[in-house]
């Protein structure tokens, strides 16, 4: 894996993590 591919993956995973967190907050957060 090249350095660029690693950087792309880091960016994508960070963004996907943010999206997942927002989903969980808006869904499960309501239960809390």
């Amino acid at each position, binding site marked *: 894996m090249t350095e660029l591919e690693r950087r792309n993956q880091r*960016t*994508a995973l960070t*963004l996907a993590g943010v*999206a997942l967190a*927002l*989903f969980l907050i*808006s*869904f499960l957060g*309501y239960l809390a």
Partner: protein
Amino acid sequence: MNVSANPTVEALEPGHPAAHGHHGAPAGLWRWVTTTNHKDIGTLYLWFAATMFLVGGLMAMVIRAELFQPGLQVVQPEMFNQLTTLHGLIMIFGVIMPAFTGFANWQIPLMIGAPDMAFPRMNNWSFWLLPVAGAFLIGSMFLPGGAVAGGWTMYPPLYLQGGISYDLTIFAIHIMGASSIMGAINIITTILNLRAPGMNLMRMPLFVWTWLITAFLLIAVMPVLAGAVTMLLTDRNFGTHFFSAAGGGDPVMFQHIFWFFGHPEVYILILPAFGIISSIIPTFARKPLFGYASMVYATASIAILSFIVWGHHMFTVGMPAAMQLFFMYATMLIAVPTGVKVFNWVATMWKGSLTFETPMLFAVAFVCLFTIGGFSGLVLAMVPVDVQLQDTYYVVAHFHYVLVTGALFAIFAGIYYWLPKWTGHMVDETLGRWHFWLSTLSVNVLFFPMHFLGLAGMPRRIPDYALQFADFNRIASLGGFVFGASQILLLVVIVKCIRGGAKAEARVWEGAQGLEWTLPSPPPYHTFATPPELK
């Protein structure tokens, strides 16, 4: 922008020409199913949007036929409600968003000097989820009980009561949301990591900037919509009571969550339009964009403000006066960065060497007519006025000026502007002008009388109405039929342009600036395999 060489595969790798087999597009239908090429996927998005535009447009024609005169003539009320609901969902999720994503796929790599999107295979997957979701939405019309009929906003308790099509629609929303989130991740990663050396952020074309900000909005709000519809799903099928008052839930909570998504969604639908217009006006004014940096900051300001105005969709639902005042003033604040943009577009044209080819005609119409939609938005932002006008045709007039003469006209402008680059052929200017004038005149005949209908108190989402609304409805319907029919011209223009026409040069428009215009028209299948050098 200066580029050292013509950065095609052919130019950069002598002896390994772009026309060489494995560099060209594979043949046949399988090419489109398996493609990972950003140009192919852009084309797929645009054709998908065009198909959905036909479906959603036909629904609008039936709606306007029913409203042509008082009484029930064409469809029953149940079907009418299904049509208005599906028309909204299809036009938002099936037309405007995919069309802008199509532009993003085609243009962003070309504009920043990238060889493709950062994740080409995910790009393919993002697209191919959409026809599935579209088929679910449209197919639900043929299920027992028909399609969803509770409005595109999906409010409970109506959405807790419907049949199987409601579950299918929720599933479709989930799929479209996943597609949007993957698309947004791809766009952000591409823009942040794949820019050519020298293409720093403040040198990026404004279309790229607006899409970068739009993609962040998508990441922020699509999961919230997914959360809201997931709760609808569990309320409907798994015994939860998030929104069911009978079980101690709160239906109003859904509205808050929905509009926390819904208002930024409005800007997801319009920010890329701002980007397209900001590309076109400087080209045909033959001047650089006035106030580039302020355009970037204005776009970011609009995006940030969009998170604190959702309550203006709910003024009559019930909220403390202090909250109403907060949402009212926050909403009015958005007029400031939007005003900056309109000012900058006009200032770009000021003393420019203006010519009015079809893309510029649509761009100028956008500036004038979108501003009308913006002003009626300001009117609706005032709580006492909104209390009178909510759920009337004034609201319908407002958002159609924003989304049709705003977003859709920008899409038309973008098609006329970049189609010669994509196909290698110039568009038929005469037909384009006919399309422009017919569309622009008829769209005002269609939507302007709706302001009067709303002010007179005609509610939205009704198939029948009191006699005093007959005249303006008839005028609006006539405008609607002409607007609908004139879109056939657009299809003719596009098909003609793909099949042939005058050869387009690399720099299609004399005043066009940017990397995409350094490539031949059409660009080779693979471009910028080696990054261009910017000076």
